[in-house]
């Protein structure tokens, strides 16, 4: 019997190739999307789950309250971790600081962009596997280095690195390799290729830092004893801080609150930053989208199968007459749908493994090497396929197996309106999903283009930025490059827009004449900075070489800062006093607000000063012509002046928009899924349209004999489907408006969702649906009526 069913199923699939194609293809596309998203979501959820003591590890963060604002997401003071160990609940603490450090071994020089400084317990708290070396001691002594397997290979090839010496930092401190670790897994929130002992900093570079309560340092991780009451521990922190640093806090007006974040929540849920961060929202959004796409594919399946039921009606009648029971027929049809979903399963495996590399690229990381890496996932997909087959098969099977043989064998049998309500609702849900996704895509992209086109308040084109890594020869380099014939302007600074910048405890004279304490964002610039970036001056004067005092005693504020101190016009602020990081002097100028940070944030109060020691980035205004050769000449100068460091550069506009990388990725994924959803919906519509058209052949024939024109028949056949799309549009509009409005709230500077967005989405959906349907309708409308009536 099974063999008989199987044969019938295969022959049916083969006979109705178009339908089978739509069913199998649609289902496998849906399943592929779902599977890939599953891999992505699963990967995101897997962060840090390889640490055996994961449940007991917490990250310490400090939110710092200043007189003007609360700064979220700092590491605690350098002094906190060493002292917090005194709590009986804490069994170990590790500070981890990421850095870019120059490594030199013989004639090999690398700028290790993923370097970590870490306390001695790094390898006992976390489960990064040491291949060589003792986890208890590798990071104990200053100038100890643990290399990852791949970086060890880079420096030492096949030789044993243990005990070998590498020179680190610009000053080439000899350091000893004490251990080799396995490369840190991708799903770790802490990323690094080399780990250097924290004692190098705390005992050599910055002795005494372990007792500095006002110096905020790296993130710290605590290993708590089993059974610790975390909230109880947190509640002891204020007294702890008061005891050690009460005076310091009052002096600087910076009041930190220490909080503990469970390690497993840091990557996805913390908004306090970190080494690598994920976004739980994306995980939710994509899980939902995956489900919706799978739903669309399943709806196609159910719709097409029930719509086609009249075709199978005769077979049902015959089988019943020769003795088939209802359950036997139901079993047969469910079996067929499971067969289809299993074929789709095989196809999904093939397509997923082909798409995986580009999906990894889309996701921006290797979420999976190969889909068969984890057999469990393949098994899960297999079970899902069977589940889909069963679920999607049950309804059509029930409909089909309940046909009465006397009715279906009498002659032509029409499913008529039976189940058409369900089919219509299913089509509406498909198009609602599709239209909502289209609207989402348009909003995401219009926000991206809004941000791209917004006047940022500074010149971002044709500016080449070279990271000097604060090399001591940077001033010589600047001089050399400004001497090049085709270079217009060069400037050194601590930050350029998009790099991030320090913020400083500052005291500024306010409108009342008091020194008001504030936490100001801070740019260290040089005399050429304001003119190079074409930042508008609204009052006073820019930094000038003609004033000797500008080197130490001058400050430029932006409008936001001026407003904060109570001045109604920028001119009033000129000549007022400031104190900041050990310097004091006068405010000499006010600049127009410019977007030095992402457009997600409002423009914050900013101060600029000249402080040559703090410079890092070299900005070069290059001519638009002969760009390539200009870069080559700049690189030549670099090699002459800073020969031991690799030359790295980028263009400011690209760099600035890199801040929106995750949004861009989000938009791209959204676009892909919207396309997929509309494609699948149309696939289903195509099948359904061709089917109803086929069913109405007789009606069309009669109408044509009565004198109906081709266009009136086209109208007749398309109208029903268009109605459904229009209904979907009205369902999708408010829903997507609500969610996209919410999404836009993440941006301080955001576009409005204009009515045109909905119109465009609606028109796109209707057009696509119309094309899909009329393709079939036209075929029926121009057919010769004699033919269609004769077959009746």
């Amino acid at each position: 019997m099974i063999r008989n069913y199987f044969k019938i199923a295969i022959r049916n699939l083969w006979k109705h190739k178009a339908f089978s194609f739509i069913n199998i293809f649609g289902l496998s596309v849906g399943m592929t999307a779902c599977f890939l998203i599953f891999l992505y979501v699963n990967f995101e959820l897997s962060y840090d789950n390889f640490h055996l003591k994961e449940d007991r590890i917490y990250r310490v963060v400090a939110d710092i309250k200043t007189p003007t604002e609360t700064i979220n997401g700092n590491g605690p003071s350098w002094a906190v971790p060493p002292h917090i160990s005194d709590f009986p609940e804490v069994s170990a603490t590790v500070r981890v600081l990421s850095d870019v450090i120059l490594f030199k071994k013989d004639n090999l020089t690398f700028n290790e962009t993923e370097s970590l400084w870490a306390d001695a317990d790094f390898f006992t708290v976390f489960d990064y596997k040491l291949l060589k070396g003792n986890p208890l001691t590798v990071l104990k002594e200053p100038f100890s280095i643990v290399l990852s397997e791949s970086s060890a290979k880079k420096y030492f090839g096949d030789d044993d690195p243990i005990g070998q010496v590498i020179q680190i930092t610009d000053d080439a401190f000899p350091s000893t390799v004490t251990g080799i670790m396995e490369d840190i897994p991708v799903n770790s929130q802490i990323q690094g290729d080399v780990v250097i002992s924290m004692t190098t900093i705390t005992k050599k570079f910055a002795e005494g830092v372990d007792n500095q309560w006002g110096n905020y340092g790296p993130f710290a991780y605590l290993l708590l004893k089993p059974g610790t009451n975390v909230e109880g521990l947190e509640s002891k922190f204020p007294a702890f801080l008061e005891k050690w640093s009460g005076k310091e806090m009052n002096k600087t007006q910076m009041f930190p609150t220490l909080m503990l974040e469970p390690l497993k929540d840091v990557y996805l849920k913390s908004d306090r930053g970190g080494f690598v961060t994920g976004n739980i929202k994306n995980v939710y959004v994509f899980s939902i989208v995956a489900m919706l796409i799978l739903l669309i594919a399943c709806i196609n399946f159910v719709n097409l199968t029930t719509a086609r039921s009249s075709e199978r009606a005769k077979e049902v009648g015959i089988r019943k007459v020769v003795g088939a029971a209802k359950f036997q027929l139901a079993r047969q049809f469910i079996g067929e749908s499971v067969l289809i979903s299993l074929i789709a399963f095989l196809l999904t495996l093939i397509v997923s493994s082909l798409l995986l590399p580009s999906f990894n690229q889309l996701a921006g990381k290797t979420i999976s090497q190969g889909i068969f890496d984890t057999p469990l996932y393949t098994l899960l997909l297999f079970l899902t396929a069977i589940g889909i087959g069963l679920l999607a098969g049950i309804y059509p099977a029930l409909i089909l197996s309940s046909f009465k043989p006397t009715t279906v064998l009498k002659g032509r049998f029409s499913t008529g309106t039976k189940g058409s309500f369900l089919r219509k609702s299913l089509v509406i849900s498909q198009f609602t999903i599709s239209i909502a996704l289209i609207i989402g895509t348009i909003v995401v992209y219009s926000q991206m283009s809004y941000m791209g086109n917004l006047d940022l308040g500074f010149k971002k084109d044709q500016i080449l930025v070279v990271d000097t890594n604060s090399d001591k020869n940077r001033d010589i380099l600047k001089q050399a490059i400004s001497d090049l014939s085709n270079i217009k302007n060069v400037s050194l600074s601590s930050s350029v827009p998009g790099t991030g910048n320090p913020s400083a405890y500052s005291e500024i004279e306010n409108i009342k004449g008091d020194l008001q304490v504030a936490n100001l964002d801070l740019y260290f610039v040089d005399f050429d900075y304001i003119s190079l970036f074409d930042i508008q001056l609204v009052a006073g004067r820019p930094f000038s070489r003609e004033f000797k005092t500008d080197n130490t005693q001058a400050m430029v504020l932006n409008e936001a800062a001026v407003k904060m101190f109570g001045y109604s016009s920028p001119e009033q602020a000129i000549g007022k006093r400031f104190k900041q990081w050990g310097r004091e002097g006068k405010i000499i100028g006010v600049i127009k607000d410019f977007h030095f940070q992402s457009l997600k944030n409002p423009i914050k109060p900013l101060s600029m000063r000249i402080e040559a020691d703090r410079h890092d980035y070299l900005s070069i205004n290059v001519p638009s012509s002969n760009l390539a050769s200009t870069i080559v000449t700049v690189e030549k100068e670099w090699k002459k002046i800073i020969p031991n460091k690799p030359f790295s550069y980028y263009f400011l506009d690209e760099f600035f928009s890199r801040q929106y990388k995750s949004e861009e990725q989000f938009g791209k994924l959204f676009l892909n899924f919207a396309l997929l959803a509309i494609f699948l919906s149309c696939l289903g519509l195509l099948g359904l349209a061709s089917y109803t058209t086929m069913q109405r052949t007789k009606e069309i024939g009669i109408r044509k004999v009565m004198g109906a024109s081709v266009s009136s028949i086209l109208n007749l056949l398309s109208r029903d489907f268009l109605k459904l799309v229009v209904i979907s549009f009205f369902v999708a509009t408010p829903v997507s408006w609500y969610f996209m409005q919410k999404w836009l709230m993440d941006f301080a500077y955001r576009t409005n969702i204009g009515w045109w967005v909905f119109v465009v989405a609606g028109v796109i959906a209707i057009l696509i649906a119309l094309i899909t349907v009329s393709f079939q309708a036209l075929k029926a409308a121009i057919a010769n009526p004699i033919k269609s009536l004769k077959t009746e």
Partner: protein
Amino acid sequence: MLLEIKDLFKWVNSGGNRIFLLNDIELTINEGDFISIMGPSGSGKTTLLNIIGMLDDFNEGEYNFLNEPVHTLKEKYRANLYKEYIGFVFQSYHLIDELTVYENIETPLLYKNYKSSERKSLVADMLDRFNIVGKKDLFPSQLSGGQQQIVGIARALISNPKLILADEPTGNLNSKQGEEIMNLFKELNDEGVTIIQVTHSEKNATYGSKIINLLDGRVV
């Protein structure tokens, strides 16, 4: 006695009026009969045949098949009864298009849970008997109408029924093919199979031993 119908009524309600499809039918059929039901279109021939075949219900009256009261039986028992004793032959053959000749004939056995080896030998016998061994792997669309009807009859006979119900079995065939089919029925009847056929053709009716004429749902 094979079956007995007493005071049987079947009606439909249409716009408040009761329209009788079958009106006070009395019928007794013995094993070995060859009955022809005749009458103009709409006289209720097919409805009667479907009721006899237990594919359709009726509103009033009694129907006893092999002394089982069909009208009181539950659906499941009724299905078992007709599965066991009744075979159907249709005007438009009603073969499953996706199955070969062999598989079409085999289908009833599948629903009776015959073993594979039994099925093989039964189907082989049937193919042999109707001289269609050479066509066993063809699909219905590859056969002529007469050949398709022979397959239909073979399928009806495979489970060795006591009664064959044929609804205008020659209606779609030309006269020569029709004659062949009628001769086949005659042979089967001679072997002891009871046959009830619905027909329009006086000539075909003469093959039977008894004619029942229907008009507007009544036996006349």
